[in-house]
């Protein structure tokens, strides 16, 4: 899968990622952390989109569930990072199992819409949690800790924690997707009948992929809750987030692991720069998305790959 030259690309990206806190001030490190987190969530979307051919328009659900679990645990006094993150991961995975089991009975446009429907339901659940501020959301008392070893209140430390988690996820995913699991998944995307005929139940494989994807998005949500020390339905559970995650994936390149991360970086970067220039930044940002679709066919990461291959 990974060609010789792609390693160079990966190494360059990794080096840049590691170096970020050495150069920028706190704000930029924080911005980079946000990129990492959204990259992680976009990656989760891409596992379904790029490898199983399933377009989920409802990943805000898992993202938000992770964030809420983390927020609630921390405010209840559970601050041990491993516990909190694991709880978010498992919680999101369970929700994803339920939603996936139901959604995967449909396909195509109907699948897109039913995932959206479930995400909207969770949005309204979040909105009705009056003890947790309803639409306004709630502030976290503090960030997670790692047994007193690391101080996550330090922006740089938190950045490296997030980066490390992303690296681990990237590694695990690349192993997974190259193993039998990934082959079956891609097979069921391309030709479900044949895969079933060979004896692999494609429904079960897709469901597992859905759960994995949901849990990664949940982890990302938990990290975002910690980064902002704030949890609220808008910005975490709303459908625009699901849309933005999809856009990040397509922006980068679907069907690659690093593509979504690059996509997230570019997406957030442009949004940031353009909103610095004018309050009407969306006037410029919208056409930019259009141009990407109309002019660049395979996504930006693919462009990078090509540039390196030459």
């Amino acid at each position, binding site marked *: 899968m990974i060609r010789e030259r792609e390693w160079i690309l990966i190494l360059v*990206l990794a080096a*840049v*990622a590691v*170096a*970020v806190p050495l*150069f*920028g*001030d*706190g*704000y*930029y490190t*924080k*911005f*980079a952390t*946000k990129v990492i987190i959204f990259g992680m969530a976009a990656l989760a979307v891409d596992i379904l989109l790029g490898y199983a051919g399933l377009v989920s328009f409802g990943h805000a659900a898992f993202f938000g569930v992770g964030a809420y679990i983390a927020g609630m645990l921390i405010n209840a006094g559970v601050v041990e990072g491993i516990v909190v993150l694991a709880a978010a991961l498992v919680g999101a995975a369970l929700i994803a199992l339920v939603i996936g089991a139901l959604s995967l009975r449909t396909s195509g446009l109907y699948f897109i819409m039913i995932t959206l429907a479930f995400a909207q339901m969770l949005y309204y659940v979040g*909105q009705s949690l*009056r003890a947790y*501020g*309803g*639409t*306004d*959301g709630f*502030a976290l008392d503090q960030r997670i800790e790692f047994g007193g070893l690391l101080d996550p209140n330090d922006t740089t430390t938190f950045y490296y924690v997030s980066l490390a988690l992303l690296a681990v996820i990237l590694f695990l995913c690349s192993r997974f997707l190259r193993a039998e699991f990934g082959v079956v998944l891609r097979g069921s995307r391309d030709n479900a009948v044949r895969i079933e005929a060979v004896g692999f139940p494609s429904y079960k494989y897709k469901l597992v992929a859905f759960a994995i994807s949901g849990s990664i998005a949940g982890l990302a949500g938990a990290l*975002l809750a910690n*980064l*902002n*020390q*704030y949890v*609220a339905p*808008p*910005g*975490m559970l709303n459908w625009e987030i699901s849309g933005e995650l999809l856009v990040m994936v397509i922006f980068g390149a679907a069907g690659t692991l690093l593509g979504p991360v*690059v996509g997230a*970086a*570019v997406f957030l*970067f442009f949004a940031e*720069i353009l*909103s610095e220039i004018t*309050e*009407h*930044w*969306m006037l410029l940002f919208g056409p930019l998305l259009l141009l990407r679709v109309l002019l660049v066919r395979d996504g*930006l990461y693919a462009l990078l790959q090509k540039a390196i291959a030459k």
Partner: protein
Amino acid sequence: MRKLLLALTLSVFATTHAAADELRLGFMSILSGPLGILGNAQKRGFDLAIEQLGGKVGGVPTKIFIADNKGNPGEAVQQAIKLVDRNKVQIVTGMAASHTTMASVKPLLARGVIVLGANAGPSPLAGKGCNKNLFITSFHNNQWDEAMGEYLTKKGVKRVYFMGMDYQAGWDHVKAAIGAFKGEKVAEVYTPLNQMDFSAELTQLRAAKPDAVFVFYVGPLAVAFIKQYTQAGLHKTIPIYSLGAFSDPLLYKAQGDAVMGIYMTEGWNTELDNEPNKRFVAAFRKKYGRDPTGYAARQYDAIMLLDAAIKQIGGKVDDKDALRASLRKADFKSIRGKFRFNTNQFPIQDIYIMQVAKRADGSMYQKLLGVAKSDIKDPDYINCKMK
């Protein structure tokens, strides 16, 4: 792309260093997105104040940094940190809606920045969440409603139907009005923020036959509500009581004649008879061609408070203790008339009752009827243990 980010990081980073004899003032509000109308209204008051002060707040050359939190709590946190870490601001003002305020106040206070909230007054920040660096110059969510509840009682209205938007500020407002009203509460209904069609609720309201209805709706929802209320013919039988934000110069054009005669309470009015207010209203009309909104007025007032406070300490903006003490005294000429801070640094102020009316030339305005209640304190200050 990361490289690009890095390059930009370096170039921007290199340019920021705070000089000693200047004020670095941040203005954060919701400038884009659906609630952008609110922040932009606020910014007009801000711009006018800065203009009148010749760009020098408290006589100190002032550098202004504008931040747009896009109505999203996550973004509000990001922007707050940007203002402090990159722009090195000493004071942040603005703050539009309660959720973005709650989210951005935390990182700002953690970094020792003084915050002058000029619009939302969420109750958690008035009680346990109060902070020596946090000044809310606008109002506490309860104040306007408490005044309205008392006004309804005084007026002898017996059965009132209560409606509001289903979120923290909505609950705060409606419950405060109910608490101060001595008559019978017919019902307490909350509708979701995204619900624009009130046909179901209006049918229930008609069936309940109350003497009056108290509503908390703002912006487009206030427009939709009043339109449908009038189309259903309810305006002929059941009068509406609400808050100043229900109908203001931003909404007149959209609401039209339907809002005529509606009663509202607010802490400020264009007709208040004091020198600073006359000056403010005249200048605002000249600059923008219409009456100011409450959002603009409160923001303008906040800047004037800051101006006076800085002047009184001789422009030494880096002396935080002195600046805080000076702000707390609130020794300035407020366009609201009487103004002072409570121990939790939320205002104690008069709340006025007003009615939407038409001038001789046909333009609409909020007609001042009088004081609804004097010297209102908020209910949360007793929980505030200021450190």
